[in-house]
């Protein structure tokens, strides 16, 4: 009897303790949000637009169908905007299927810190959607029908997971971005997108990365720089590098990266001299050549050296370009703060000796030597 009483009590405790987040909701009585965009008005109020899926029974042919809805609202806060949006919605909006959170470039320039709280803490909003910055007119973006997918959110989600892009441009999820906010300097690179193409043939295009410091846009990295940035941060798996043809300078060769690995060593020699080494190891193969090429050992060494030189220069330039603006692109400040917290100050970048060491191994076919 005592055991039964304990079992029933435990059951009741579980019932009330475990069911706080959700309540019974039929799947057809919900609007599924597939894309959330956050913009900012000229007065600094958040403007929220969402794309949602609505299932209903159509009068035409008496069949069940679904359609795409776009909602738009502003409010004092994002939560306020969400509530305002529900005033015109047939059912409650469900954010569990939202795969992408888009901030406009304008919002990024204004600073997104004011808008993040609800996405971080609300139990009905998930933490794993991708986060991107949109460059262009967000109203037009949401009201454009793309041919590749009916739903812009789904299209964008698949685009960001496209292997060719995903291997050399890092996709940030909201939770990862929130982690960046916790480290020293709070610098993060977020993928930028835009819309291109003739009317009726519009496509979403990934356009490098946007650099945010303390939730505010401080710069952009175009495709090539974003690639170097990801390579030096050991987030580049494979991709392409194009260099000048060793024999004909006006022509090019494209090298395919098969494997890439970057190790970072920070040497704390003295407070005045901190040396940071980025040791990059690449395994590549020849992808394409615009002019004939005899791929003997000498030529291989020439190509390797050319690529090593190119990456080293681009990497060191990128560091210095942002170091001048006191932006810690490679999270070196965090490494210093962990090991020598007293050495860290605002001028630390002027004391850092940043070196990129690149080692390229070119693999070739054992039989094919001449590329004519």
């Amino acid at each position, binding site marked *: 009897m005592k055991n039964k009483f304990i079992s029933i009590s435990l059951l009741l405790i579980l*019932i009330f303790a475990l*069911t706080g987040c959700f309540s019974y909701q*039929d799947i057809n009585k919900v609007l599924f949000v597939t894309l959330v965009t956050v913009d900012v008005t000229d007065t600094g109020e958040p403007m929220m637009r969402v794309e949602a*899926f609505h299932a209903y029974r159509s009068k035409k042919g008496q069949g069940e169908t679904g359609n795409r809805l776009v909602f738009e609202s502003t409010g004092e806060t994002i939560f306020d905007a969400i509530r305002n949006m529900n005033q015109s919605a047939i059912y409650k909006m469900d954010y569990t299927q939202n795969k992408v959170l888009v901030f406009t470039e304008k919002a990024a320039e204004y600073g997104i810190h004011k808008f993040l709280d609800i996405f971080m803490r609300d139990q009905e909003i998930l933490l794993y959607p991708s986060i991107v910055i949109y460059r262009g007119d967000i109203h037009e973006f949401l009201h454009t029908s793309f041919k590749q997918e009916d739903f812009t959110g789904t299209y964008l989600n698949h685009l960001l997971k496209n292997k060719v892009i995903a291997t050399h441009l890092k996709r940030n999820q909201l939770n990862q971005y929130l982690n960046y906010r916790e480290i020293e300097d709070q610098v993060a690179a977020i993928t930028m997108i835009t819309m291109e193409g003739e009317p009726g043939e519009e496509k979403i295009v990934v356009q490098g990365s946007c650099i945010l410091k303390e939730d505010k846009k401080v710069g952009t990295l175009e495709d090539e720089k974003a690639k170097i940035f990801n390579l030096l941060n050991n987030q580049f798996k494979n991709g392409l590098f194009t260099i000048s043809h060793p024999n004909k300078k006006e022509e090019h060769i494209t090298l395919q990266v098969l494997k890439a690995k970057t190790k970072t060593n920070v040497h704390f020699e003295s407070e005045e001299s901190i040396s940071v080494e980025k040791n990059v190891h690449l395994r590549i193969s020849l992808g394409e050549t615009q002019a004939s090429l005899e791929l003997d050992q000498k030529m291989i060494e020439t190509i390797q050296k050319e690529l090593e030189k190119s990456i080293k220069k681009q990497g060191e330039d990128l560091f210095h370009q942002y170091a001048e603006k006191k932006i810690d692109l490679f999270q070196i400040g965090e490494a210093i703060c962990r090991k020598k917290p007293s050495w860290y100050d605002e001028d630390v970048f002027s004391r850092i000796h940043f070196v990129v060491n690149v080692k390229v191994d070119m693999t070739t076919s054992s039989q094919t030597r001449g590329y004519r």
Partner: protein
Amino acid sequence: MAPISLARIQKILQDNEDITYRKIVNNEETIIIIFAGNISDAHYISEVIIKPLVETKEKKLDVETIQNSIITASNTGILQKEEEAILHILQGNAVVLVPSLSSGIFCEVKQYKKRAVETPPAEAVLKGPREGFTEDISDNISMLTKRVKDSRLKLEKVHLEDTCNTLVMMAYLEDRVCKKTLAYIQEKLQNMPPVFVITAAKIEELLEEKPTAFDTIGYTEKPDIAAARLGEGRVAIFVDGTPIVLTAPYFFLENFQSPDDYYLNRYTVNALRLLRWIGFFISVFVLPLYLALITYHFSLIPTVFVFRLAVSRAGVPFPAILEVLLMMFFFQILREAGVRLPQSVGQSISIVGALILGDTAINSGLASSITVLVVALVSISSFLLPKVYGGIWLWSDIMILFSAFLGLPGFYISFILFWSHLSSLRSCGYPYLFPLGTLKSYRYRDVIFKGEEMDMYKPIFHRGEEDEK
């Protein structure tokens, strides 16, 4: 000892038109032969009892002389009590009474109308023996002893307080049987309250330790299976008038075994066993899980499928829980109709009913196509395990209600309750989930997958209580 009185017997059996009294007078001695005409062999009685009594030249006709020198029946005995005489008459034997001596003899002359040995429809096999038990206990015992030609085979008659005097017998192999189980069954049967008619179901209920929808006592209609179970050390209980033989103890894992498993290729059998396990998990857990996902946890469903689910339910006016219960109810009606009708009609009803009901339920907006699909999948899966069907149905419904009220936490709670219930069950002193959960090595070679044929049918209960630690 009270003398056997013809008058009292006639009084007790006075309104029974089936009883025949044949009077023979020989050498001035009157002899009465009493038998039930419809359940005894009249021709045999004439040949082995009446004719010898009429033709005898013996002067002294006492019971010993009649039994030893006159009657030529194979099985005879001297009666001591009136009750015995009445019991023999009602069982179809003839009672030879010498009124002047107030004593009698019984002769076995019973001849019942009985069914021929047929293939049991519920345990049909592709490769194995076809014969199945019948309603006649002596036929059933003969089918068993034909297979187990072992002097250690014990066939115990169980005396029960039953107004119909149903014959119940217990069979076991003396050297292999689990003593604990045997003692448990004997004690339960001895303490059985008086009932009108003993059936296998009554004994099954008596031996159950806890109310449950799962069978904790096994049953079979096939003598080869009964023999195999005796070989493992189990006890078989035969009840006259029932073509089913009870076997105890019975474990949960046996629900996944089929008669064909022991005649087909081992690897094919194990693949089928895996299929049955998958079927079991589908039939118990898929519907509650489906309900929890489509009413609480949309984030766990892929986006494209969420859209499809939402569209398919768009025209359904009822909540998902009602939709699921309605479809389950329809299915149960169909199943019951299919089972109760004659086989040829039942099959057509099931197919036509399922097609029409499923299609019209979707078209009329009573249910979504995906729910119909899930209910159909669950229902078909439950057919893989006919022995555990009741338990599956009941527990699936309980889990559906938990999932509908609490979502996944409800599903987990009911999942734990389900396994706790199964773990708490016992079969004749053994845990129902045996040998799962035992720490000691066990001899049972037929757990989830079937072991090698040479390892099968070995005694599995030698260590008695140690087995369940």
